């Protein structure tokens, strides 16, 4: 396919600094969501050396639970309670529901295979992913649901956005909306909370010990089953939060939405260094920014090429990822 470099340079010039700011804004928001999902991948890999391919579908389930709560309270067009408590309820329900689902999946699909060859839990994870996707497909008939957040407190008939879509502030007349502030702020808050849990709490210490050496941790009296279940719970909670925020920010939820988001978040985790929490965060932002700038400067059909191109580049230059520790091999 022809890639006209001069057209790209022309686009960059035409969009100018304002366009560059918009793309940075878009990339940071999207990247925050990827980072949250990537954290789940990295936490589970760190503890179990398992790539939980069902994680993207946990994010999807979280988005659906959020939508369910929104609909239960009248939907975006006519909510029966105020916006703030409604949004909080959506988050709580999705995070709790998905967290429990993550624990159940670990208990029944992965724990029995913990001592099996590495490929077995991987296949099981794929199976769980297909199971979740197709279960939702059967329940919804492939229907795509729109959170309709634009209308939440707004009026679609006059294209007047609700409060979440109104500008919180502007930079060179380019708006940053309240929902974008919510996404980035909540993501940052959750990432900080996770870092504190992992570094400052007993559970976090147990998680680090289990990740370092599961057998030794068990011998030291740590209930590794419980630690692993907690890890899955935390990862699923983060993914669900990302799902609700995606629903609020973008609006759409459907059975297949977890596939590509999960793939990109996995890419973010790998780029950042699988098993590294700061790596997952930075990886997520990097992927989000790459996607935004590739779309904005080159074109929509190039965004996935750019994202996965970054993955290949990082793997060639730093195979353990940007923040991944090099494994020391005893000889």
């Amino acid at each position: 396919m022809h890639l006209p470099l001069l057209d790209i340079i022309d686009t960059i010039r035409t969009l100018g600094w304002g366009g560059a700011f918009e793309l940075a804004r878009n990339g940071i928001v999207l990247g925050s969501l990827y980072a949250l999902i990537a954290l789940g991948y990295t936490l589970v890999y760190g503890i179990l050396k398992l790539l939980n391919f069902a994680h993207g579908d946990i994010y999807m389930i979280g988005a659906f639970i959020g939508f369910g709560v929104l609909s239960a309270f009248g939907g975006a067009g006519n909510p029966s309670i105020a916006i703030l408590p409604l949004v909080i309820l959506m988050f709580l329900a999705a995070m709790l529901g998905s967290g429990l689902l993550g624990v159940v999946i670990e208990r029944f699909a992965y724990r029995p295979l913990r001592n099996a060859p590495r490929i077995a839990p991987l296949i099981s994870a794929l199976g769980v992913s297909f199971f979740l996707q197709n279960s939702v497909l059967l329940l919804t008939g492939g229907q795509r649901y729109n959170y309709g957040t634009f209308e939440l407190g707004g009026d679609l008939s006059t294209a007047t956005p609700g409060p979440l879509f109104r500008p919180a502030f502007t930079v060179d007349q380019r708006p940053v909306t309240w929902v974008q502030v919510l996404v980035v702020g909540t993501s940052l808050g959750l990432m900080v909370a996770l870092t504190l849990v992992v570094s400052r709490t007993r559970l976090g210490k147990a998680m680090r010990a289990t990740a370092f050496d599961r057998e030794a941790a068990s011998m030291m009296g740590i209930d590794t089953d419980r630690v692993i279940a907690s890890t899955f719970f935390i990862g699923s909670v983060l993914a669900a939060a990302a799902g609700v925020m995606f629903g609020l920010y973008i609006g759409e939820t459907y059975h297949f939405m977890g596939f590509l988001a999960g793939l990109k978040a996995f890419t973010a985790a790998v780029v950042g260094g699988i098993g590294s929490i700061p790596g997952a965060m930075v990886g997520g932002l990097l992927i989000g920014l790459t996607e935004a700038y590739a779309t904005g400067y080159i074109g929509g059909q190039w965004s996935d090429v750019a994202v996965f191109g970054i993955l290949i580049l990082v793997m060639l230059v730093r195979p353990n990822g940007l923040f991944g520790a090099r494994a020391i091999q005893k000889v």
Partner: protein
Amino acid sequence: MRKLLFGAGLVAVVATAATAAIAATHAPATHAAKANPATRLVKCGNTHLIGMAFPATGDAASLGQQQLRWALFFQSRWNKTHKAKIRIVQGDTQLPNTAQALSVAHQFASATTMLGVIGPAGSQEVQDTVNVYKNAGLAVVTGSATRVALTRAKTGKPRETPANYFFRTVPNDDQQGQRVSNYIRKTLKKSRVYIIDDDEAYSQGLADQVQKLLRASNASVTRDHVSQSVSDFSSLITRIPSNTQVVYIPWQLAGKAQLFFTQLRTAGKSAIVFGSDGLFAPGTFTAPNSYVSAFPVDFNSAALKAYKKAHANKEEAFGLPSYTAGLVVATAIEKACKDGNVSRAEVRKNIIQTKLPKAATLLGFAVRFLHKNSGASQGNGDMAAPANFAVFRIAKGGKYVRVS
């Protein structure tokens, strides 16, 4: 000893294979004639099978499921009023999974009691599978594959399907493209248009047509692309110049179009959004003062009211041509069954001679198929005039008002 047994087994296998090959080449000639799937006679029992090749799963599942809803709605209406029932046999093609579409085609082709096929849904799928259906004598009637080249050859190239095997109950891209570009230039009087296709064959075909026609009328046209899997359009919208007057989105997912509209307005851009028939979804795409080209459907008709009632008040028209496709095939089977036996060849012959009145088709026009080229872009298998698209404006409250 082991080697001896192995050798004996190998000899036995080779001997068996050789015997089978010799038997096959010496089979009586009449066996080959009786096995011709097109002319094989099937007794007209109480139930006739019609295949439906559509995307039940995968990324296009929402469209495929809508087509299925309409086809099953047809089945239930037909079965209420006809002694011989029809049963739709579903084949999931997982559009755009060509291998899966071929698997479905082979499955339908080998089902001896299958008399006709609704679908496939995608233009590329049609091109990839139509010869399998042709070799089996099966006619295919699609409600959504709109690429012009399927029925009308481009200069220097043959048409993409064999004549008299492929039919469609939906006008092609060129008819829709002409409608849209005329409306934008002559009625809306806009000259700065941004076209975004979603990388699928349906969308690209339409986008190509509209782009060509608009440029021919001296409009300033920018073309862009986005994947169907994208929901965050913010960076794509950054590329759209602020002075753009119309954004044409020939997409198939109405929910995506709704998201695009709200994100466009959030970004402060006021361009008119103009969608294709894939976006005709009054319950889903409700962007005020936007436009959609679609069939001149009357949602106040008894049949469509019945559909809405049976489907949680859904007002969706993208899948409606699949209803009509089912009607075409079922009517052809019924006609062929007058003598008690039916073959695929007879059904196909009756499909070619289809004449359905406007009230029965639900499309807003009568349906009969062209037997040869007509006009600039229609060919054998396309619907004859007055089949064409209308233009609807979305008024306040999401009401679709026909304006052309």
